[in-house]
């Protein structure tokens, strides 16, 4: 009995392997593109929707005839929120599946983990999430925001009269590289605006921290000393307990506004937003942005979610990293079309200066040298329906400064991508 079940298991696995083989033979006349997002583990909460968005975009490109007359064939793998597995999977995508390009990663550590692999094998990665900068690899294109495209405009807004004229700043983050760097840059920026160190408080919590009683009490105490704003780089999962505690202790946006850099529409789905109206988020795109490109983008996504029967399809929302994924894939396709090939070096050359009419309502351009997108900055206020209303935005897209001028030593960095930086 036991033996039989084992034999069955082996036969099953063998036949599935055979299926996989025959499938890859069939699909020889396509261009393979890798999708490297965690579908299980702690990061699945953020990354699964990017995988689906990538698949939708690929369908969209295929519906228009693909790239260079060939259809795109997505290769989806699950690095399971395990950082060494990210490196292993990217090597597999590049050497076994021989993909032309990879779209993926969310956390900085996953990007740092795959970076040596991409540089060694001369692969191409599109990274769609806002991050701390301090990196510029020739093998990566960054379609998310660098700190100057998100953090600094947000703080400028908070200090303005409309933003409440904040004098004191409570920098709250999860203890990892992105919050640390962002806060470091912000501190230097605040100093340059004449804010003294006693008016800046920096606090970090561990990953998955769920008890914010003490911290909210401290914010309350700190805010008694003058008009205060909280700048939150709290990571995904900890946001719900944090906002719930804010509401619990009666800290309203009119007293102490919280501007978050990691809270978008997708995260708000898990929160009752009625007590949060007026708190802010800074991004380069909001679902509520009103323009024809975005209307189509949002409608397409909702239809896709419904057609594919994704979980929670009736409440499907778009957010900034999803837009960045969408823009990135389209830009790559345009560049490959222009280069007439999917060869990494040729595509890289073609990508410089490539532009795309994005759902944010702006025409975004890939910088000629620094591998980052020029992006507009928008400040959105949380509404009671889980959406944001844009209260402020830049006139035109800003060029990214991945090497922030507020970090000493960066002035000596070259403004073009160099391996191993």
């Amino acid at each position, binding site marked *: 009995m*036991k*033996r039989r079940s084992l034999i069955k298991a082996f036969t099953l696995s063998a036949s599935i392997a055979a299926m996989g083989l025959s499938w890859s033979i069939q699909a020889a006349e396509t261009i393979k593109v890798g999708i490297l997002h965690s579908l299980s583990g702690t990061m699945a909460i953020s990354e699964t929707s990017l995988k689906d968005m990538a698949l939708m975009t690929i369908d969209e490109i295929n519906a228009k005839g693909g790239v260079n007359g060939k259809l795109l064939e997505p290769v989806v*793998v*699950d690095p*399971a929120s395990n950082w*060494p597995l990210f*490196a292993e999977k990217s090597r597999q995508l590049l050497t076994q599946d021989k993909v032309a390009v990879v779209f993926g990663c969310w956390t900085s550590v996953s990007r740092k983990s795959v970076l040596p692999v991409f540089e060694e094998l001369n692969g191409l990665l599109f990274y769609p999430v806002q991050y701390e900068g301090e990196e510029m690899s020739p093998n990566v294109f960054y379609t998310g925001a660098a700190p100057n495209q998100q953090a600094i405009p947000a703080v400028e807004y908070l200090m303005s009269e409309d933003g409440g004229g904040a004098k004191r700043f409570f920098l709250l983050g999860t203890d990892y590289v992105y919050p*640390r760097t962002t806060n470091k840059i912000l501190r230097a920026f605040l100093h340059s605006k004449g804010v003294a160190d006693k008016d800046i408080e920096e606090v970090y919590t*561990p990953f998955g921290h769920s008890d914010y009683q003490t911290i909210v009490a401290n914010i309350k105490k700190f805010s008694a000393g003058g008009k205060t704003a909280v700048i939150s780089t709290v990571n995904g999962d900890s946001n719900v307990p944090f906002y719930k505690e804010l509401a619990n202790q009666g800290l309203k946006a009119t007293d102490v506004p919280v501007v978050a850099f990691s809270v978008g529409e997708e995260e708000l789905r898990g929160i009752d937003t009625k007590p949060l109206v007026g708190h802010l988020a800074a991004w380069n795109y909001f679902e509520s942005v009103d323009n024809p490109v975005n209307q189509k983008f949002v409608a397409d996504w909702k239809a896709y979610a419904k057609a594919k029967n994704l979980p929670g399809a009736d409440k499907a929302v778009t957010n900034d990293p999803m837009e960045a994924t969408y823009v990135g894939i389209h830009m790559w396709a345009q560049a490959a079309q222009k280069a007439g090939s999917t060869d990494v070096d040729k595509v890289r050359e073609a990508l410089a200066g490539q532009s795309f009419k994005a759902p944010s309502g702006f025409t975004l351009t890939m910088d000629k040298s620094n591998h980052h997108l020029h992006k507009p900055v928008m400040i959105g206020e949380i509404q009671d329906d889980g959406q944001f209303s844009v209260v402020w935005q830049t006139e035109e897209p800003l060029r990214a400064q991945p090497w922030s001028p507020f970090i000493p030593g960066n002035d000596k960095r070259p403004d073009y991508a160099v391996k191993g930086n």
Partner: protein
Amino acid sequence: MNQPLIVTATRKAGTRVSMAVGAVVVLVLLALPLLSLLPDGHALQVSAYTLTLVGKILCYAIVALALDLVWGYAGLLSLGHGLFFALGGYAMGMYLMRQAAGDGLPGFMTFLSWSELPWYWAGTQHFAWALCLVVLAPGLLALVFGFFAFRSRIKGVYFSIMTQALTFAGMLLFFRNETGFGGNNGFTNFRTILGFDITAQGTRAALFLLTVGLLLGSLFLCWRLTQSKFGRLLTAVRDAENRLMFCGYDPRGFKLLVWVLSAVLCGLAGALYVPQVGIINPSEMSPTNSIEAAVWVALGGRGTLIGPLLGAGLVNGMKSWFTVAFPEFWLFFLGALFILVTLYLPKGVVGLVKKRSQP
């Protein structure tokens, strides 16, 4: 990847055949790195991907073996072996970071605008000291923890939960950026090891051979240990510690020795793991990873020497394959596998083989 074949083959055979199969596996493992040196496009060339993947699994196999030594033979289930593994890895990582940084500070420190290295980084630019750390860091920690734990006769579930708490605390500590180990990002972007390019095919092959060597070495060591009087004492500790004490033995020393040995083996495995995988960060210390190591041992068959190796190979091989073949459903397979093995194969895969050969 090729474990299912081995299993089916050994099932049909007695000891002699399994010895032969073992020899073949060893030969294949030794041949892999050599084949990887063949020029690109050669029919027999082994890709760097396969080599690093198998290398990684071999490192895990050493961890499984080390865990089996304390669990399968001495009856101490540790849910914190990931900590020792990661400590070894971090010690090696410190050396690799210093190599990559040259005379300057490692990247993440300049980033936090530190001007000098913390004291515990002293000497890590020397390979020899880094090797000492690989042994000392996990070894000393295990010694201290084990000394107190065995002195107050903590055992069974209490011991497991305490080791889990230990690795959890370690993970939180290493997550902190101020601790000086690169926080959540850990160490990555290595360049050279002993002056050799870390991405060169030759370096990879050498590291792989070293891993095979370490695996065989620890296998031999464990085999000698378990066959000796010491091994029988350990089994006695596992089965009836009190009776052993009534016989006049003091089990603390034996437990401590095997516990520290196991931790050091893990540390060595970690040290070989880091240059092959190219990253070390605190998530290696997460309690989940250590539980997974226990799963490998149980799946393969604890209390045997081959079992844990089979278990580590099977689970990781399946994981690598499932995560591509069924990205959304692989956890179901893995979960079901654990349940089925504990229910129907209490002695693991090896138990199945043994049952066949001794009807």
